[in-house]
């Protein structure tokens, strides 16, 4: 268990646009251990989403290596990546990404379904997960019957359902007002205090500071990696 959960080595992601090469990720080296709460922060176009896709095993690097839970993802097939996403990562998206035609329960059950878990157990786990975010009673409703904050909580419930090693949140408060944003962030902190590993992507320094460790990227390169206090000091942000 001494392996870090995330171990990215000399990772490049290069997009070819016409005859121009865009280094969306430019020699990224990043290790994240189990139990950490890390925010990845940067301006628009800095390469955050690109990095999140790599971390989330949604995409493969152009070059370099990515070990997730000790396994090299850069040589995996499409289906192997699907399996590793299913078992190790819980996604929380900016746009919630709930399926509108499924009930909340069915939405939360999805990762369990793809893990091949039997109906009964699936139901129990999904309900458990929904009750963690305080929406157990609404299990039979549809996403469009909920507020934005509630939908984001459902998406957190879905991310938690399969007890993944990593919660990966991409701008989780991007679509929410400041009050509900605060609720969601507090909830993430609570999950962290319960031992979950969380990686949160954001463009907002104030939100980045809610984590324990901040990684700042600029033009595809990591320009800062350290604890929240030193980040606040170095970038002169009031905490």
């Amino acid at each position: 268990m001494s392996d870090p959960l995330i171990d990215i080595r000399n990772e490049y992601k290069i997009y070819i646009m016409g005859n121009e090469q865009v280094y969306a990720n430019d020699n990224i080296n990043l290790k994240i251990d189990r139990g950490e709460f890390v925010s990845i922060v940067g301006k628009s176009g800095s390469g955050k989403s690109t990095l999140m896709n790599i971390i989330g095993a949604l995409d493969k690097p152009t070059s370099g290596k990515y070990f997730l839970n000790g396994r090299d993802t850069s040589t995996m097939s499409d289906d192997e990546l699907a399996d590793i996403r299913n078992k190790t990562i819980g996604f929380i998206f900016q746009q919630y990404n709930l399926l509108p035609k499924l009930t909340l329960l069915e939405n939360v059950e999805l990762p369990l379904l793809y893990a091949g878990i039997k109906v009964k157990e699936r139901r129990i786990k999904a309900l458990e997960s929904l009750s963690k975010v305080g929406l157990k009673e609404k299990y039979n409703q549809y996403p469009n019957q909920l507020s934005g904050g509630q939908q984001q909580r459902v998406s957190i419930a879905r991310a938690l359902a399969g007890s993944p090693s990593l919660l990966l949140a991409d701008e989780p408060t991007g679509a929410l007002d400041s009050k509900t944003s605060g609720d969601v962030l507090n909830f993430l902190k609570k999950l962290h205090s319960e031992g979950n590993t969380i990686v949160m992507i954001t463009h907002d320094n104030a939100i980045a500071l809610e984590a324990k460790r901040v990684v700042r990227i600029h033009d595809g390169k990591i320009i800062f990696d350290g604890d929240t206090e030193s980040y606040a000091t170095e970038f002169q942000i009031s905490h």
Partner: protein
Amino acid sequence: MLQSFKLAIKAILSNKIRSALTMLGIIIGVAAVIILVSIVSGYMGQMVEQFEEMGVNKITIFCRNMNTRHIDDDDMYKFWDEHPTWIDSLSPTVTLSSAIAKSGSDNLDSTTITGVSEDYLDIMKYKVEEGRNLVYADVAGRSSVCVIGSYVANTFYGSAEKAYEDTIKINGKPFTIVGVIETQDEDNFEEGGTDDFIWIPYTVATKMNRNGFINNFVMNSTDTLYTEEITEALEEKLSNVFKNDRLYNVMANSSIIKQLNQSIGTLTAMLAGIAGISLLVAGIGVMNIMLVSVTERTREIGIRKALGARQGVIMQQFVIEAAVTSTIGGVFGIAIGAFATKSIGAVMDIKANPTVWAVLLSFGVSVAIGLIFGYLPAKNAARLNPIDALRVD
């Protein structure tokens, strides 16, 4: 799997008009296959039945005799002697043209008068109701006797018993009625119908006809196995006599039935093929809709893949959706096709039943269409990159 079926039904129901239009293509295609195939095979089957009723063993010979080249009854009986195992019975049939038959003062205008041998009864598969059949002695002795159909007996004498041993005058010559034949066709019991006939010995008939030739013969083979050999031997014999194949014709019921059955096969296959093209078009419709459906649901597919759905799972979902759509269409098509077949059959007075193979085939084809034409869109869906798919709004 079960989950995929539920999802498929949900997806189909969520866009009812579109699904219904897609199914319509399949419905029309399947119904067309069933209607065309069933009606045609019902119609042709009825023709086959008619020939079978006339006797599968029956072989008919038509000749146009002339003074220089002709055959007679002796030639044909000699042919029978040469091939005793092939032939069961033989009768010349001599139609008395422009003969006037009279029962007392009544004219029998519509009655067919035919000169036949004692075997004719068996060949026609008729039975005597009253009296007896013609016998060899009548033929050999050129007796002035006759056997009549039940219509003649009933109409001109009141009943078979009353007609028996009474007389009929043909061209002024009295013939004793020695037998009456059972009614053959109740539905056609009228003037000129099946039961309106008089049989006299053919030897008498040839004498009454001016030229004295026997132009037609009928025979029954002992078994349809010999049909071809008999036909060939007869044609060889007739060809030697007439030297011109337009002057004779040998027609075997069993070969006609065989030919008919062959044409039924070809015709139904052809019609099924034509209707199959409409199924193909329907399949392309299914594919089109599935491609649209995949495009519309790109985001959904992206989410599912991000959450860990393997390619096979996504693929299965869309293939099943296409297959369920076309299967539902197929079932409706079968129902409509079967109903239409019955109605059209009733209107056209044909015993048309939706044939099992047409139903099974079109059902199979509609399921297959779903699978085949759903495959490409499903593959597109399964191959979608989750990142690209998630970016779409």
